[in-house]
């Protein structure tokens, strides 16, 4: 092996192995991370304990401010290990409230940008309607902030991004995935429950990855970048996208293109990865 390769491997630092707080810290400029409502504030879920479920001090969401590429930045990281990264009232309000303040910053002349590190199954079912309401507000805040600065989401894995938060991911200016990422609206178990095992076998992992894994999503043009599980290249990719600025037309605004493509899909047969890539190939607006 060449020395350069050895050096590269030695320098590599896995991102997916980091916890939410470490992830947030690692992507901002060195020593610039400052956490808001940190775990010692103990703003915890008011709903879990009364259902006999142990809460976490930060409710599974880390919100930090700092600099990225020397510019003011908000970073949000969801801890996928706690309750599957599910969003309840407190965690959801942390994300929505922070994005709302970032938009307010921009209206007042401070160009705060936002990075979302999404590891989530979506709504926390123990706080069902409050999680859903918070996700609607997160979505509203992304669309609002996006008017001023790019909002960039990264799905690194291993949890992936599902439920209402997959819709939130679809609203972002840019979306990054690793090979460990999965992105979909409905979790495999729920689809199997609702539609039957023939429609969706939640235990068939290769099948699920072939449709919703990071590589497939990138090959189908449903995300903007496919990154290695390595901290520094991810950070550089974020910086490059922020320097590029807002996209000409958000993916979530491309209804004409998607409707045209979907009209060409033969829905009499089941979908597979190759058919999706074919359908979504070609220039996007």
């Amino acid at each position: 092996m060449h020395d350069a390769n050895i050096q590269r491997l030695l320098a590599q630092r896995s991102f997916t192995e980091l916890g939410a707080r470490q992830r947030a810290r690692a992507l901002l400029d060195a020593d610039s991370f400052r956490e808001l409502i940190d775990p010692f504030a103990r703003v915890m879920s008011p709903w879990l304990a009364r259902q006999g479920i142990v809460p976490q001090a930060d409710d599974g969401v880390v919100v930090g401010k700092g600099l990225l590429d020397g510019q003011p930045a908000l970073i949000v990281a969801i801890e996928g290990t706690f309750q599957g990264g599910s969003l309840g009232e407190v965690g959801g309000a942390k994300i929505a409230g922070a994005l709302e303040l970032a938009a307010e910053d921009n209206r007042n002349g401070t160009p705060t940008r936002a990075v979302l590190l999404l590891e989530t199954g979506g709504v926390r079912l123990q706080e069902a309607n409050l999680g859903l309401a918070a996700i609607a507000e997160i979505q509203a805040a992304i669309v609002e902030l996006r008017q001023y600065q790019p909002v960039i989401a990264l799905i690194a894995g291993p949890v992936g991004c599902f439920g209402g938060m997959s819709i939130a991911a679809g609203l972002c200016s840019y979306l990054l995935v690793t090979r460990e990422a999965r992105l979909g609206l409905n979790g495999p178990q729920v689809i199997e429950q609702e539609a039957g095992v023939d429609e969706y076998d939640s235990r068939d992992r290769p099948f699920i990855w072939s449709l919703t894994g990071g590589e497939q999503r990138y090959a189908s043009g449903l995300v903007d970048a496919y990154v290695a599980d390595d901290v520094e290249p991810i950070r550089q990719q974020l910086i490059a996208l922020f320097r590029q600025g807002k996209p000409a037309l958000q993916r979530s605004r491309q209804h004409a293109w998607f409707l045209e493509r979907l009209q060409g899909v033969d829905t009499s047969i089941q979908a597979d990865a190759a058919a999706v890539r074919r359908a979504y190939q070609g220039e996007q607006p």
Partner: protein
Amino acid sequence: MSSTIEQRGRSWFHALVGAAAPVAGLPASLLVADAELAGQPVRYLAVVADAGNSFPRARNGEVGLLEGWGLAKAVDEAIQADAGSPHKRALIAIVDVPSQAYGRREEAYGIHQALAGAVDSYARARLAGHALVGLLVGKAMSGAFLAHGYQAQRLIALRDPGVMVHAMGKAAAARITLRSLEELEALAACVPPMAYDLDSYASLGLLWETLAVAEIAQPTAEDIARVQDCLGQALADIAGGAKDLRGRLGAANRAASSRVRELLRAQW
């Protein structure tokens, strides 16, 4: 029973729209038309069952790929049409959506992105100055509600056991949280955000108004007048006010949502 509920969106759409011609160029599962309410231009939108839907998992009124992107288109067209006008037509989402579409095709072709398309258009319309009202006449479930209605500044729900807001149906929720249906129901009875009834939902402060009608499936002339009156009041309430969703904060059962925002602001 389910077919009655599925037609509610259609019934209310026709009741409110009257003789106005539907907007063309949309999937058959979407009913969209421009009409007038309280002297203002209004676009009504509903997602309805379409037995001929080319996506088989979206034939019962679910919000699927075509519905998400179709709503995105229908709302975006209103934004474009009114772009140069100081008077933006109001958008009224008639909500009767049993769920998002659960299926292999849906996941494969990116239903999350289609629903993001709908949310994108609704949220941009609100920011552009269109008043946005959600009228709940049936189920308002999970991702389907996020895509159709939940971006509204004011939510109005008709009082009826069939009007329900939730993140997941009971059976699936029980399976995912590893509980029996009985355990889930017992918890739902004492944890308001988990409950399936409208009063519990209203206690979260997310509804602007609830309204009783005589015949929810086939509204009477009096029902229609009452709902129109309420919609008109909602439009008046929105006029000149905030373009965001802050009107939903403040309920005692949602105190943490306010407290978190206060702390964030103090530490920002």
